[in-house]
């Protein structure tokens, strides 16, 4: 596993600076700062409603945000400055930027009208402009990597929850994104299916993928992450290597939070 502590302090792949986000009058993110370096695995933990999902959705431009900036590989995403005003990018530019990050959702969101392979191929064909045969080959390679080579032509409805989520992971990874966002990807699964999905993510982390994930599985966060981030009330309250954060928590809310979760 690449060690974040010893690598050179190069420019982070993802830099979130002072991110502010409101829904109507209620401010949900109140100035979040967060870095993710190339090859790093960062886990976000925190109580329900602390803004974890919202943060990931801002990074993938599924939400607009009102303040601060998100830099992916140095490029500000979602907005451009013009005459001192912040303007939301056009649909085409947003799409281009979204293609650089992959996202795996809690509820899989597989396209029901496409097969497993079709789900993986859609972005390859329509966004990357790959030919059918090439896209099919890439899709099969990725489905094999998540252990679903035999299920390529199955419809989503013919797959178990765990299998569906692994297809969703293949769909995100096949686009070769710089960064993959994973939001509680095992929360909608039956307990006996959680293991297979987490093992898949762990393997990807071991191969050097850059991951920013939200999880309620503390053991998993401890095993897989270089850095764990604790969010509380729309702010990053504490961050550090998993050993420190779980072994020696300092923020009182984190101590309370960890006491409330059984399996760390």
């Amino acid at each position, binding site marked *: 596993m690449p060690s974040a502590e010893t690598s050179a302090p190069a420019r982070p792949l993802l830099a979130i600076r002072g991110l502010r986000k409101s829904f109507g009058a209620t401010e949900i993110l109140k100035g979040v700062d967060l870095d993710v370096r190339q090859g790093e695995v960062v886990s976000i933990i925190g109580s329900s409603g602390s803004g974890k999902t919202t943060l990931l959705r801002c990074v*993938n*431009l*599924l939400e607009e945000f009102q303040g601060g900036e998100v830099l992916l590989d140095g490029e500000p995403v979602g907005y451009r400055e013009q005459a001192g005003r912040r303007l939301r990018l056009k*649909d*085409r530019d*947003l*799409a*281009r930027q*979204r*293609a*650089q*990050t*992959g*996202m795996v*959702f809690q*509820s899989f*969101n*597989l*396209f*029901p*009208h496409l097969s497993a392979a079709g789900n993986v191929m*859609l*972005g390859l064909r*329509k*966004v990357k402009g790959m030919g059918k045969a090439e896209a099919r080959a890439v899709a099969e390679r990725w489905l094999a990597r998540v252990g679903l080579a035999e299920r390529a032509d199955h*419809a989503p*409805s*013919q797959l178990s929850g765990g299998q569906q989520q692994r297809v*969703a992971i293949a*769909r*995100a990874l096949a*686009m070769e994104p710089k960064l993959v966002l994973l939001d509680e990807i095992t929360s909608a699964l039956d307990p006996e299916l959680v293991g297979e999905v987490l093992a898949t993510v762990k393997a990807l982390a071991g191969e050097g993928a850059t991951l920013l994930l939200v999880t309620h599985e503390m053991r998993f966060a401890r095993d897989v992450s270089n850095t764990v981030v604790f969010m509380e009330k729309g702010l990053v309250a504490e961050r550090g290597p998993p050993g420190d954060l779980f072994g020696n928590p300092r923020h009182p809310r984190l101590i309370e939070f960890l006491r409330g979760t059984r399996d760390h």
Partner: protein
Amino acid sequence: MDDLITEAWDARDVILGGLLQTLSISALAIVLGTLLGVLVGVALVYGAWPLRLAARAYADVMRGTPVLVLVLAAFYMPAVLGLHLQPFAAGVLALTLFCGAHIGELIRGALGSIPRGQTEAAKAVGLTFFGVLAHVLLPQALRSLLPPWINTCVEMVKASTLLSVIGVGELLLRTQEIIGRNFMTLQFYLLVGALYLVVNFAIEQAGKALERRVAFR
């Protein structure tokens, strides 16, 4: 009965010509109306407010006005506005506008019932708005739309009879002409009714076959 068969056989060219006209009118109205309906439906769901308002007004006016009024208006109105339409074109125009409004509403409903996660997952892959629409939303919407769309096709075939009122030589008008010659009123109305039944049953059966083929596996 023998009389009917003899008379119908003598008039077979007229009847077939009318049937062909009915099928062309219906097919044109359905194809053009469906294209229009997709635009209207998308405008109703995703349009900026001026466009949405225009689409809403269009759909409400078309659906609140009887089809016969639309047909008569399309027949009489263009001429005084300096546009000369043949009765056939005027009738097809009226049916298309009506069909487009109905299909627009159907599409609006179908798009609205697709979970938001589908759009988000498609955006996350990097598709633009039109990519999301073309490759993810519409294919799903069209599948759930197939049964009501087939229904609309049947309604359009039925509505095509209204063009007889403006003198388009479709099946009903041709039949009325035949009755005018041989006075076999009941027989020929039953015959024409049966012909419409056959056409519409055929559409329904084709629709069911299509449904089985495109159902989610």
